C-alpha cells in the first residue's frame, strides 16, 4: 500500500469510527505531513489503518453522529439558468437552491460552465434565460485576480470593509482575524505583489468573508494552498456553515475529506443536484 492508499484507507476508517470531520482532517493531514517528512512505509510508521484509526478515536474521544440541523431559509435560488457564448451553449437549464447553513459544491469537467454559473449567481454576468434570487448580503471570491498589487493587505481590508459600512480600524481587525483563521498573519508592511500566489488567494478569500455575507460564492479559492491551509480552509467553511451562512464552492476535485451538503454536477448530460455523498457527514 503506498502512502496515498494508506491515507485514504485511514480516512475511511476514521469516518467509520465517527471521528468528527474536523478532527479527522487534521489527523490525516498530519499523518501525510509526517510521511512526507520522514518517508517510510506507512504500515510500519503508523501501523494498519484500522488499528491506528482506533487509537486515534480513543485518544480524541469519538463523538456520536451529529444531529442533522434543520435546514434554514433559502438564501440562493437559481433556476433555469441558460447561457450561450455564440453558438456554444455553456449552461442549459441549470439550477441550484442553497439554504442557510448549507455548503453546495459545483463540480464538473473543465469548461462545463462552473465559473460562469457562479458569476451568474453573483450577478456579474447575465444569463440568456433563467433567474437568480439572493436573500441577504453576498460575498464573492474569484478564482484569481481579486487583489491589487500595489496595496497592502490591510488596505484591502479597509477598502472592502468600507463597502460594508465598516470603519478603518474594525475593518483592519476583522481582516486580520479572518486571515489568522487561514493560518496567515497578514503583515502590515508588505505590498500584495510581493505575496506568494497562495497567500494572495488567502487575501482574496479573507476579503470575501470580511463583511460576513449571508451567501458566500467561492470560485476554486484554494489554488496554491498547501495541505495545511487547505485543511484550515475547509474548517473555516464548516464554521461559517454552522454559523448559518449559505456557501457555494466551485471545485474541480471533490476530495473525500471535503464536507458538503449538496453537489451540483454541471458535466453535460449531468446537470443534476445530488446529496453530498462525496463528503463524509454530508447532511443533505
Amino acid at each position, binding site marked *: 500500500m503506498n502512502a496515498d492508499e494508506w491515507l485514504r484507507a485511514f480516512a475511511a476508517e476514521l469516518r467509520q469510527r465517527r471521528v468528527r470531520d474536523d478532527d479527522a482532517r487534521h489527523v490525516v493531514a498530519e499523518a501525510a505531513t*509526517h510521511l512526507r*517528512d520522514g518517508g517510510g512505509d506507512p504500515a510500519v510508521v*503508523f501501523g494498519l489503518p484500522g488499528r*491506528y484509526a482506533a487509537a486515534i478515536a480513543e*485518544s480524541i474521544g469519538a463523538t456520536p453522529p451529529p444531529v442533522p440541523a434543520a435546514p434554514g431559509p433559502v438564501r440562493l435560488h437559481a433556476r433555469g439558468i441558460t447561457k450561450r457564448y455564440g453558438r456554444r451553449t455553456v449552461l442549459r437549464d441549470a439550477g441550484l437552491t442553497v439554504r442557510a447553513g448549507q455548503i453546495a459544491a459545483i463540480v464538473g469537467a473543465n469548461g462545463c460552465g462552473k465559473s460562469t454559473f457562479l458569476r451568474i449567481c453573483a450577478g456579474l454576468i447575465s444569463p440568456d434565460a433563467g433567474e437568480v434570487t439572493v436573500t441577504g448580503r453576498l460575498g464573492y471570491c474569484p478564482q484569481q485576480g481579486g487583489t491589487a498589487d500595489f496595496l497592502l493587505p490591510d488596505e484591502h481590508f479597509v477598502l472592502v470593509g468600507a463597502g460594508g459600512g465598516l470603519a478603518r480600524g474594525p475593518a483592519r481587525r476583522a481582516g486580520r482575524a479572518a486571515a489568522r483563521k487561514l*493560518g496567515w498573519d497578514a503583515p502590515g508592511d508588505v505590498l500584495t505583489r510581493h505575496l506568494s500566489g497562495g497567500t494572495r488567494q488567502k487575501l482574496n478569500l479573507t476579503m470575501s468573508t470580511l463583511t460576513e455575507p449571508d451567501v458566500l460564492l467561492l470560485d476554486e479559492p484554494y489554488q496554491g494552498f*498547501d495541505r*495545511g*491551509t487547505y*485543511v484550515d480552509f475547509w474548517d473555516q467553511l464548516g464554521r461559517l456553515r454552522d454559523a448559518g451562512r449559505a456557501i457555494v464552492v466551485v471545485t474541480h476535485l471533490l476530495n473525500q475529506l471535503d464536507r458538503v451538503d449538496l453537489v451540483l454536477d454541471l458535466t453535460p448530460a449531468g446537470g443534476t443536484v445530488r446529496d453530498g455523498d462525496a463528503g463524509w457527514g454530508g447532511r443533505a
Partner: protein
Amino acid sequence: MDIERRGQWLRGVLDLCVLGLLRDRESYGYQLAQALEAAGIGSIQGGTLYPVLLRLQRTGLVSAQWREGAAGPARKYYRITDLGRAELRRGGQDWLAFVAPVTGLVTERVDG
C-alpha cells in the same frame, strides 16, 4: 532491549518526555520524533507519538496550530500550556521519586 518491556515503560513516560521537549520551544510531530531519538529514547513511530499528542491536546496540556514554517510546508505545531508546565513539574517529580529506588535496587545487583 526487551521490546515489550521498553514499550511498557514508554507508555508510562512518553507524555512527560514530549512535555519536556516542548518546555522551551514549540515543535511538530516529526521533529519531536527526531528529538526523542536524538535524546536516546529510541525510534518512536508516528503511530505511537500522535495519539499521545492528541491526548495532551485534548486534556489541555498542549495547544496546537497549523502554520507554515520559516521554510517548508504547513505543519501542526504543538506548544506547551501553563497547565502542561504544571503537569511536567508534578509528573517529572513523580517520575524521579519512582525511578530513584528502582535504580538503587537494581544498580547494586545488576553486576552480580
